[in-house]
């Protein structure tokens, strides 16, 4: 029972070049930060390509990528590791963060604000120039190799007092701002990812812009690029465009009756 603890770094390597269309100077910023060993904060709405960007960077640098999707029960122990009991002994098992530091991976903590507050304790020393991970239970300090990079993501769109990133945390990072790509590029992404033709992709993007216009007027978020890709995939499977949009976009965005009707009308205006 000791196999599960050793994770092969190769298993975490990104094997194929991920499809990623640069939106601005985010790659240059990332490269500069990585060279200077400064952690990065990816800011942006949901489904705009933050995770894909990290995959692309990991592939480009040939580093393993450790992604942790944070949730409200994620504790520091979940990140750092814990003792497990096996036959007559306790065995220390590294958590994903410790593994990532040891193998010099890119560690990507997705939606960091969702995690428990105690995770900041382990993130802070890793994010400043100490670049060290303190494993309290073992009394061990793991120094991050130069290839290691910490990246976190954060969606500033949530207007919740509970989901603010604290200044002491955010000021340790170089922030890279993501937004939905300009129409032309976004249509290219949708066409590539879903396999619909260029004209359909353009219409999907136009629809997305309309729903984004409704952000703050009753919608928390407009349709993300990811939703467009979903809708496009359904269409590529032969589902009628309005049905595909209804399932992949309208119903995904809201449950509110009036808003459903309005988005439905927008869909039928475009398709």
């Amino acid at each position, binding site marked *: 029972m000791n196999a599960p603890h050793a994770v092969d770094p190769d298993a975490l390597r990104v094997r194929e070049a991920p499809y990623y269309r640069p939106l*601005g*100077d985010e790659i240059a910023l990332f490269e500069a930060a990585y060279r200077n060993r400064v952690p990065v904060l990816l800011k942006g709405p949901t489904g705009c390509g933050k995770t894909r960007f990290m995959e692309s960077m990991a592939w480009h640098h040939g580093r393993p990528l450790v992604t942790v999707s944070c949730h409200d029960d994620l504790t520091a*122990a979940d990140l750092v590791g*814990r*003792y*497990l*009991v096996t*036959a*007559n002994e306790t065995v220390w098992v590294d958590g994903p963060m410790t593994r990532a530091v040891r193998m010099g991976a890119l560690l990507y903590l997705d939606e960091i604000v969702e995690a428990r507050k105690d995770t900041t304790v382990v993130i802070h020393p890793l994010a400043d120039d100490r670049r060290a991970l303190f494993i309290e*239970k073992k009394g061990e300090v793991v120094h991050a190799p130069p290839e290691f990079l910490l990246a976190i993501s954060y969606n500033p769109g949530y207007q*919740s*007092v*509970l989901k603010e990133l604290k200044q002491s945390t955010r000021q340790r990072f170089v922030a890279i*701002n993501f*937004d939905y790509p*300009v*129409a*032309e590029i976004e249509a290219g992404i949708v066409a590539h990812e879903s396999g619909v033709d260029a004209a359909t992709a*353009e219409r999907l993007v*136009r629809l997305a*812009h*309309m*729903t984004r*216009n*409704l952000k703050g*007027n*009753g919608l928390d978020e407009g349709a993300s690029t990811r939703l467009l890709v979903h809708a496009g995939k359904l269409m590529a499977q032969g589902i009628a465009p*309005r049905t595909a949009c209804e399932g992949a976009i309208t119903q995904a965005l809201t449950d509110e009756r*009036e*808003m459903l*009707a*309005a*988005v439905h*009308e*927008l*869909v*039928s*205006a*475009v*398709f």
Partner: protein
Amino acid sequence: MSSSAPSSEAPRPQPPATAGRFSEPPLAATALEERFEELIGAVLSSRRTAAGISQRLARETRALQDFALHWVAVTSKTNPELAYQFAALSADAVAALGLSGAERWLLAAMDVYDRDGLYRASAALKDLDGYVARARETATGVALAEVSGVLELFVTGLSGRRLRLEAGAQAWTDTAVLTLPARVAIFPTRAENFRVYKVMAALLWGQTRYGTYNLDAAAYPQEASALAHFGLLEALRIAARLARALPGLHHDLEALAQPALGPEYAAARARLERPDASAADSAELANEHRLPAVPPAWPFLAAIDPSSALGVRAERVARESAALKRALIRLQDDLQAAEDGLGERAEEASRALRLSVSETDEDVEVSAIFDGRPVAPPPSVARLAESLFQDLGTLPEDMLVAAGDGPYRPDANSTGEVPQDAIDARDDEPGPVVYDEWDFRRQHYRKHWCVLRERDVHPGDPAFVTRTIERYRTQIGQLRRSFEALRGEDKRLRAQPDGDDVDFDAVVRAHAEVRAGAELDVRVFSRRARHARDVAVLFMVDMSGSTKGWINDCEREALVLLAEALEVLGDRYAIYGFSGVTRRRCEVFRIKRFDEPYDQMVRERIAGILPLDYTRMGAAIRHLTGILSSVDARTRLLVTLSDGKPDDFSDGYRGEYGIEDTRQALIEAKRAGVHPFCITIDRDAASYLPRMYGAVNYTVVEDVARLPVKVAEVYRRLTT
């Protein structure tokens, strides 16, 4: 908290008509007349009797008679004259509309009475034939009020600028408001009539989006027929744009009957369908006089009114260009500061921000360049630039750059004038809010009935708080200790699969079990778990005149003790007072907002709580429920401190009406996920509070002197 869970539907006061009554014999005219004397005697006289009405009704069934009497009774509480007129028409109304239809007809008239008074209301009642005709239409027609919510979102989605919808005689727009007919009943089905609304709204939206009003005033045709032509040609041009940008919508447009255009229009049409056609082309064509004298009629055509639209547009351009200028300067400052912070100082000249706006394939795209690299413009800047682009067709050079760096700021004027966009954005200072009120007699809401304002409590004598703390020193100590026990204390969880320490008991047990041949239990750790409280509570304090003196002192002391105790607990809490006179002046007083700390200011405000006017509770509950709902917490509590029944001196709020409205407001609160609770000192509370709050959701503090300590105790009990 388990409540008696009152159903969302209030029971009807008495059934107006039940099937069983059909078998009962009808009342005779004399019996009816007697009842009318009782109910509306105030508006009867020797010359105006209820005899005629009674004789008419005596010929009807008992069910109809009961219906008439019931609603005469209800209406007479609003206005006896209206009740009399209803009685006179009731038999005809039921004959034409049926019982439930007649009920709706009366309620519509009562709404008119609430809004416009007796004269209009009796006119509405008397227009029974008109109402019947409209009711027939209602079955298939669509009212703007039903669909304006969806349509408003629809046009907002089509392009970023927010447009309002209003009902009017004719479809037209001043580029800020889309005016549409109040009702569309052209087609036999609702779906088709809705489509008419959608197409008309889209054509009006097209006028704002595709620049119908982007010309100089002189460019618009002067003659009426030419102007009418201009409207028709614009519709053709916009339809062509829709065909390219929104094919689905264009399909809807084509499904409607099209204007009958003769061959004279062929050339104009071809010109307007070109992608670069603009309103200038339409104006030119309309002025050329090559078209027939009168354009063909088309029911979906929008009217054109350049003078008012141009005014609205000019005012908006002025406002938005000033706002954009300020926003750009701010953005440039921020970007420069950020760069200075990074120590990457570039040439001064390149450190300017530059916007660019382009129209690609029906979409307006806003981008920005700073220091040679693209930056994402914030949504507010993009929205302003897009809106200006819509109005101007292009953005002039001086709007694209952050002009006037250095100390000068266009908005730093010392005249004390508040810039327009600052007014729009001042959401911390809410204006009057309008709330519906429940009328239990009608079993309907009175629409937009109460006007409520938020105000600040004038700070009072800070010595009051110090004195209170001094006086209740021991009690505060006890409260704090008991609240500390409540606090999300750390608790050690045993036999956990993972933890920060070893649970030796579990280890020994596991060891013994393994020796005995059982399977190893790996849960041998102990872990400290924080039991997190996630409570937000809003205290709603009665500031009515009846609390004057002793009760008011106790209320204020109670709040001081409560705040002292809550500070230990760490729950989020807010304190608001409420009072008001009449439905037009309901007031809610901020004492402590959720985001405010318990500081000197709050203490002084608590000291400054004064007995004011009346207790129109419904509106206050509705408003505070809204505030409480916006707080993210697992448990939301609305605790009312009160000294009696809801009461207001006018509009019949006193008594049953007020209780029923309050009850309805509390039901709304529960639906919104808020737990209401009431602490009262009224010993008669048992007669009405169970109806309002449910049997277990209130407590009576008999001894007013105990109120200060009791409130905190009750809260502690409530949240454990």
